[in-house]
């Protein structure tokens, strides 16, 4: 295993919700609630989850845009929070970010040369051979022409703008790129070009990526490892082939079976039809609010496995388990095993689920 370049320990980010004249804190949004992982040199960690899962907040903390409420971010073994201001700035050079929206993340009043060269100005660095030459090289590196430096962002298409954003991120020769949904805003036919570029750059420059995306196909393609987030927690983390082919967490299963597959044999059929095969799971409802996440396992209120085991436990058919009632509304609930509702499961070894061993072997969708 290569050396970790980035390590995150029990990272937490809570946002206070303030109301009224005195701006009193009335609630807390637990956007990220105790996340740990390591990223190895030259590797890609894919971070998937739905909106509100905390994946973007996590990415922003790693890039230094957001301060953690608790926990540690270690870059090359150094704790970012313990460093002096100057030290943080130096470390920040090594972790750069690529943003989702190539239309709003580039200043329309700056030329491409100014945009890509701005990191040099901020960090007061004169690259060897001068800034202008360095910008030209960066543009070439991402598949644009050095002559494009004098143009403005509106003269470029979405895919080209994303290349400009990548060139800017690479200016200070970082070791780590945090990519927050870098291809989601692009047309399918252009997405692949940017994904391939990121892969080329990784191999040429030995970069490490934290790749945040909601598109499970893109993440499978690019990531060596995948972490699945739900309500501020990582619920499953493992080598991407393992996670995709044999998910151990019921939420990962549900996420994978909900993803549209370009195969007409796999249908979103009305209830009662065979539809997407025996492995298909449709989750009911939507994720609970991160201001008031469920106790115990955060997924237990929507978990099909907890529901199935809960009714077994309620009938006394599950040895050693007692059932409790749960549900969004008091009274109108269903049974789940008591453990799910009371104790938060640990991520061990791969899935944070008390009953990971009860998740049946994967049903592969044949294509």
């Amino acid at each position: 295993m290569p050396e970790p370049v980035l390590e995150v320990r029990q990272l937490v980010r809570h946002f206070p919700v303030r109301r009224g004249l005195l701006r009193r804190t009335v609630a807390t949004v637990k956007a990220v609630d105790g996340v740990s992982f390591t990223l190895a040199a030259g590797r890609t960690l894919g971070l998937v989850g739905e909106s509100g899962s905390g994946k973007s907040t996590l990415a922003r903390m790693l890039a230094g845009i957001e301060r953690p409420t608790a926990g540690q971010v270690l870059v090359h073994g150094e704790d970012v929070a313990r460093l002096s201001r100057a030290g943080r700035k130096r470390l920040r050079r090594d972790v750069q970010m690529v943003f989702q929206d190539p239309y709003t993340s580039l200043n329309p009043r700056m030329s491409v040369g100014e945009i890509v060269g701005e990191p040099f100005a901020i960090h007061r660095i004169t690259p060897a051979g001068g800034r202008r030459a360095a910008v030209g090289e960066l543009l070439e590196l991402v598949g644009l022409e050095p002559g494009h430096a004098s143009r403005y962002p509106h003269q470029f298409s979405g895919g080209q703008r994303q290349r400009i954003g990548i060139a800017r991120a690479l200016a200070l020769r970082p070791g780590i790129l945090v990519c927050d949904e870098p291809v989601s805003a692009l047309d399918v036919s252009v997405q692949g070009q940017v994904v391939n570029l990121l892969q080329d750059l990784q191999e040429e420059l030995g970069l490490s990526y934290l790749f945040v995306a909601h598109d499970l196909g893109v993440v499978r393609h690019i990531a060596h490892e995948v972490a699945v987030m739900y309500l501020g927690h990582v619920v499953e983390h493992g080598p991407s082939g393992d996670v995709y082919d044999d998910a151990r967490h019921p939420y990962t299963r549900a996420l994978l079976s909900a993803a549209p597959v370009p195969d007409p044999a796999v249908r979103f059929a009305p209830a009662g039809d065979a539809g997407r095969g025996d492995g298909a799971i449709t989750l009911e409802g939507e994720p609970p609010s991160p201001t008031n996440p469920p106790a115990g396992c955060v997924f237990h209120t929507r978990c099909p496995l907890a529901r199935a085991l809960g009714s077994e436990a309620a009938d006394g058919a599950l040895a050693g388990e007692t059932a409790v009632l749960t549900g969004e509304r008091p009274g109108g609930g269903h049974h789940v095993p008591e453990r799910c509702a009371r104790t938060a499961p640990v991520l061990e070894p791969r899935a944070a689920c008390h009953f990971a061993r009860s998740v049946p072997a994967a049903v592969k969708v044949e294509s």
Partner: protein
Amino acid sequence: MRVRKAGGTGPEGTGRAAAERDGRTASSRAPLLEVRDLAVEFRTAEGTVRAVDGLSYRVDAGRTLAVVGESGSGKSVSSLAVMGLLPDGARVSRGQVLLAGEDLLTLSRREHRDRCGDRVAMVFQDALAALNPVHTVGYQLTEALRARRGLSRRDAARRAVELLDLVRVPNARGRVKDHPHQFSGGMRQRVMIAIALAMDPDVLIADEPTTALDVTVQAQVLRLLAEIQAERRMGLVLITHDLGVVAGVADDVTVMYAGRVVERAPVRDTFRAPAHPYTRALLRSIPSAASGGPQGADARRPRLSVIPGRPPSPAALPAGCAFHPRCDLAGDLCRSERPPLTTALTTQPHDDASSYPRASACHFAAEVLASHDVPAAASGRPRPTGRRDARETEEPTDA
């Protein structure tokens, strides 16, 4: 793990409506909605730009047609034209929109919208923008019913609850008094669908209805649409860029590129063997969640198959076939002569044979079809593509 599926049945009354509609279509045998050779132009500072050029499709009762294309392909503009909702500066320059045999484009704008209001409904991508923030959803659900059918307030209130029940919004009775911002994204999209269903339309046009939603919520909404459509035998036109969604719900597909139809076929045929190089390339470029990805630790990983370059601006379409600069099959003929949409394609007959004959607008359609490359497995194929290709083909907009 038990498989859970959204259950339940629709409210009473839909069975009757479906039966009536069956009678209607059986007697006329015309498609519910047919678009013939539609062209839409925009007047811009640089002159007239043709956004849609010769779009034809038909929708039958109980079937789903997907209109697929990337941004700028004209897929959304064409549905606005069908509904009579084109913005200022845009006009239909050619073609017919036949609703149960009547050409809506010969009517006045007001009559056009009246006809649509009764029988064709539309669902938009952004429910937050499409809903009125100052009215309750109950009010918006029944606005049309009160204005057009003269429902009393009490009947309207009851109907609003029925409609929310129909789209499975929990606690419908309590929620009709809520405003749009009090709903989550998925629930808002359900409210939009409920509003569209209020007038019991024959045809529902859904423009990227799930694009803004998370995958698990998207699956719920697509399943709901499939259910409602099957119950009511509606015709559904689904406008989308997502071929996964197309494969998941559509019966037939029309693929648009640069304002024109490049391929149309029953969905199974297109995915089994696309007949246009653009469709084929699009299918190949989808990264699969079912297979592929980095294999060994240090081995050079496969690259995604890509379409070089980018879609042309409608203001500056290439001569000949609009796809030729990005096409791996392009020859001299493609650069000079625009290929017509040809229906003379032989396909293997199968049980799903619809009234949707295959067609492709490619000089080499027969070759594409014969090459029979199974695209589903092609996602991880190593190809010499990447940034060098992009530099050769992508030019700045104003170059």
